[in-house]
């Protein structure tokens, strides 16, 4: 079936929002830490893991989700949360540590939790995967046709939780789709140095589920595969594993010198930046006119600017609020 124009455009709009959000966060993050980098300083202190380049994996799955579907993600969560429609203002405020944030400042960038839409992330590699399995377990018990999506990276595929989660999901035939964002690096360690086999999608059959490799960092390719996998899960067909070869354009964390990747590698990534290739195709296919594109970019940027302004102008929580919310 032809891909609806609305989906094609919505994916692009989300990509623009994501890329601009990551750029603005990066700018602010680094801005008041230099000249001598002090990780504790500035309006956004601590670690920061940005997803520029990985937009296609996040936006490709979103058109197939519905109300009540659950997502768990990783320490590099922004693109997924934005694509899913997590409240951008509250998300930005949480990253800035403000009281108006998703967690009233208690979670920060690696621990973003939203209820509508249902989104959560874990800073511990692979440990969000069993939680997604649990959401799918609940959906099955409740008789709903909701699905859970579990995002993780190539590095996570060697952690025990990955293997336990896939086995459980297949054993109990749960409506969960596992999505591996293969950006080929776990911090500085390339996949060839960490993983005994070439493709983590191969591991799927060892756990009794189909595995699909998407070798292109292309939202439409992800869209087509995700559509099938999510429909299958909703239909009672059980779990599957999708591995997408994507690009982490920047370092593992902001401040990472990224010296372990060659200039040629980085140049090649820049060449195939989905923010260039995807809109070029939309324009050449007449899905978007240049005027529409400009308008879309304007709106996406405005939403991000508004969210960041909201975050900047929001108050910090009172210090003693640190003692709240341990127990319900």
């Amino acid at each position, binding site marked *: 079936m032809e891909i609806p124009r609305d989906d094609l455009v919505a994916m692009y709009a989300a990509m623009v929002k994501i890329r601009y959000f990551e750029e603005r966060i990066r700018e602010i993050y680094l801005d008041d830490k230099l000249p001598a980098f002090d990780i504790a300083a500035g309006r956004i202190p601590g670690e920061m893991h940005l997803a520029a380049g990985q937009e296609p994996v996040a936006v490709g799955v979103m058109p197939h989700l519905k109300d009540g579907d659950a997502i768990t993600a990783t320490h590099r969560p922004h693109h997924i949360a934005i694509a899913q429609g997590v409240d951008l203002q509250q998300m930005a405020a949480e990253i800035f540590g403000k009281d108006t944030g998703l967690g009233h400042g208690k979670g920060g960038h690696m621990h973003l939790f939203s209820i509508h839409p249902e989104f959560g992330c874990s800073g511990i590699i692979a440990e969000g995967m069993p939680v997604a399995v649990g959401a799918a377990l609940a959906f099955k018990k409740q008789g709903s046709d909701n699905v859970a999506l579990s995002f993780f990276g190539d590095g996570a595929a060697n952690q025990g939780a990955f293997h336990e989660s896939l086995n459980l999901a297949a054993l109990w035939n749960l409506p969960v789709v596992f999505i591996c964002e293969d950006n080929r690096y776990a911090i500085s360690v390339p996949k060839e140095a960490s993983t005994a086999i070439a493709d983590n*999608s*191969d591991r799927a059959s060892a756990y009794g589920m189909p595995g699909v490799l998407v070798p292109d960092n292309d939202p439409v390719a992800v869209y087509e595969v995700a559509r*099938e996998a999510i429909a299958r899960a909703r239909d009672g067909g059980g779990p599957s594993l999708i591995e997408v070869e994507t690009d982490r354009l920047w370092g593992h964390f902001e401040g990472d010198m990224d010296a372990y990747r060659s200039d040629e590698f980085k140049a090649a990534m820049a060449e195939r930046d989905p923010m260039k290739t995807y809109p070029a195709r939309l324009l050449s*296919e007449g899905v978007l006119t240049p005027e529409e594109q400009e308008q879309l970019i304007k709106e996406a940027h405005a939403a991000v600017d508004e969210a960041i302004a909201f975050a900047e102008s929001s108050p910090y929580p009172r210090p003693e609020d640190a003692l709240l919310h341990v127990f319900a």
Partner: protein
Amino acid sequence: MTSPSIGLIANPASSKDIRRLVGLARVVDVEEKANLVARLLAGLWAGPPTRVLALDDAGGLVRRALHLTRSIPIPPVEFLPVEAEGREHDTRRAASALADAGAALLVTVGGDGTVRSAVEGWPEVRLLPLAAGTNNAIVTPVEPTIAGYAAALAAHGDPASDQELTLLRVIGGADGPAVAVVDAVGVRSRWVGAKALWQTEAFVEAVVANARTTAVGMASVAAAFGPIPPGHARHVVFGTGRRIRAILGPGQVADVDVASTRLVPIGQAVSFSDETRVVALDGERRIVTPGTAVEVATGPRLIAVTEILAKTRKPGFGSGSGEGAEG
């Protein structure tokens, strides 16, 4: 005189696409492929002396096969000076390098897409394609050890017994010169996306070559209208007309409506209609410009393994040292 070279290209990416979800296609994982290569190497040694010139593929398949065969005799294996990037063009570049290096023939481990890329890089290639793909329409359906033995014989023997394959040359595509060895299917979709073809309602037309009656895919559509005589391809136009039950892929049975068909001899071209926005070559979509055409040509050859083996004593009847086993 140096032994003839056997070109080897193993594709780590075959058999992993969306057809695992939209059909019943299985995954052929890297271990399985490495095992195929290992068996091939063992079988090559059984025949007359050869050496192997291989692509050092991005999945480490050949290296893994070398590890698996470390304690058994195999021919010497050398890697091509082609850096594999884990992209489709690795196969094309490797095939082209093998042509330049004067390799006697090419063994592929992959599917029809792998064969396609290889032929694109080496249009006159002598092929021995081992099945590690989804449809495997162009294939040597023989256990890889035996295939290796036959390949060694073929490298020393007479190419006259090779089967000539029809080739489809794409003229005017957006991505530069391209070929197909099984089919070129025009679809209404404008997107390359997940590349595979499964949505029959989007089919506009197809040009099908080399359609064995036992093959799945477009070949099963073309074959419904009778065998394709050598030196021809069949142009199929989809639309109201005759409904055919086709087996489009593993576990994928679909009814398609065919409005008309005709045979197209070598030398003639088929122009795609304006409805065709994207053409899938051997099962993978790529972009086209309006006015793209497919010319029926010839070029690659399939090594006739059964005939070669029939003319030859099998190992066990010869000296067992890997020499002098020709018939």
